[in-house]
């Protein structure tokens, strides 16, 4: 058998990782309104599974961009919560001691008053773009896999 060229092999690996990662990540179409016990602020909250093929340190999350009904959500209003530990999603890449288990559900939380005007009761189009760094080099471009998660969400 002929040896594959490097570019096509890398493309195959990227596609494979994306296929797996985008499969089980948004397990529910429900978006819940949750009040934070400490800040007393309300957040739209939904589950987000770890897309990587193993667990990963949270620091490997390069970025999380959320769009609801075609509106780009202000990144400062997006929070990532893992086992009750809540951080601003933008700062996730600094948490190199916080482990996100294989397939483990985290919660993404969006400050309610920042997107209220774009939300309806049902049929909310949710789109998430998430970059994740491999903590071991697979020779991927920039060592990053870019995932896209989509679902239609109902507010409960």
């Amino acid at each position, binding site marked *: 058998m002929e040896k594959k060229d490097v570019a096509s092999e890398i493309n195959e690996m990227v596609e*494979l990782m994306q296929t797996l990662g985008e499969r089980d990540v948004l397990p529910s179409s429900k978006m819940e309104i949750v009040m934070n016990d400490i800040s007393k602020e309300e957040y739209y909250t939904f589950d987000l599974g770890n897309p990587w093929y*193993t667990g990963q*340190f949270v620091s490997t999350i390069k970025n999380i961009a959320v769009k609801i009904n075609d509106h780009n959500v202000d990144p400062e209003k997006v929070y990532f919560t893992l086992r009750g530990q809540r951080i601003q999603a933008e700062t996730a890449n600094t948490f*190199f001691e916080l482990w996100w288990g294989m397939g483990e559900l985290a919660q993404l939380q969006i400050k309610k008053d920042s997107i209220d005007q774009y939300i309806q009761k049902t049929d909310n189009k949710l789109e998430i773009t998430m970059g994740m*760094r491999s903590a071991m080099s697979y020779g991927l471009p920039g060592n990053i896999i870019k995932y896209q998660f989509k679902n239609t969400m109902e507010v409960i």
Partner: protein
Amino acid sequence: MKLGVSLYSYGADLHSRKMTVYDAIEHAAKIGCDGVEIVAEQHVPNWGNPNYADVKALGKFIESLGMEVANFSCYLLDFLRTDRRQSMEELKERAIQEIMLASIIGAKVTRPIYMNLTDVKGGDLNTSSTKEDLIEIISHCLPTLEEYDITWALEIHAPFPPQYYNEIIKALDSPHVGLMPDFSCWQTGGLPSEYQSNEISTFVDLLPYVVHVHGKGHEFNENGEEPNTPYKELLGALKDANYQGYVVAEYEGWWMNYKDSKTMVEKHFRLLEKYGR
């Protein structure tokens, strides 16, 4: 030889939260495995800094079902921080911790993989881990490996050539350092993890140093054969060499599409039994 399953094979159902690690271990016992391989980053809760009691409990559960921990796989992650790569001192410290955790769970073989595919793909060699790094790290760990009676297995996986780690084996010349061939190196069929199939003779050449084997599989036909992998020849070579270590089924078809893990693992394990018992 002893036959088992890597719990990696249950990835589809672990990734989608349909099964727990404990469910997977129970299934492996039910189908007759001698042992199971743990992949720390997939199967140990709160990895990185796990609770030792959790690690011990996992090992005890495996033992309670009449099995062994065939291998404790883990990764030496060098890009876990965003601001910089791990230093050599941090990697050495981490490797020592992983050996100790292998001991706590009851394994005799561990695979702290440290590799950089740019080594074989070209690309940015400034970020490439080198064989010299590995020799330095493992040399540092040798007293710990000896103290805990653990063997460090260097995994040979496609696209690395089968002889890739031979110079490390020779340089370290220790009974606590061996090879872990993954059948991906001898697969054909253009599978995603496969670059270039190698002759079976390249597998035979490794046998004196083999301490654990990954029986890689992606699909099984109506006869129970893995059409991309020469199982009969590879397991036959191990039998001829009177290999006494583990071969574990490592089903990887779950990356491509979802199939019921228990069904696929049982097919895979029966294939190991067909040529390995």
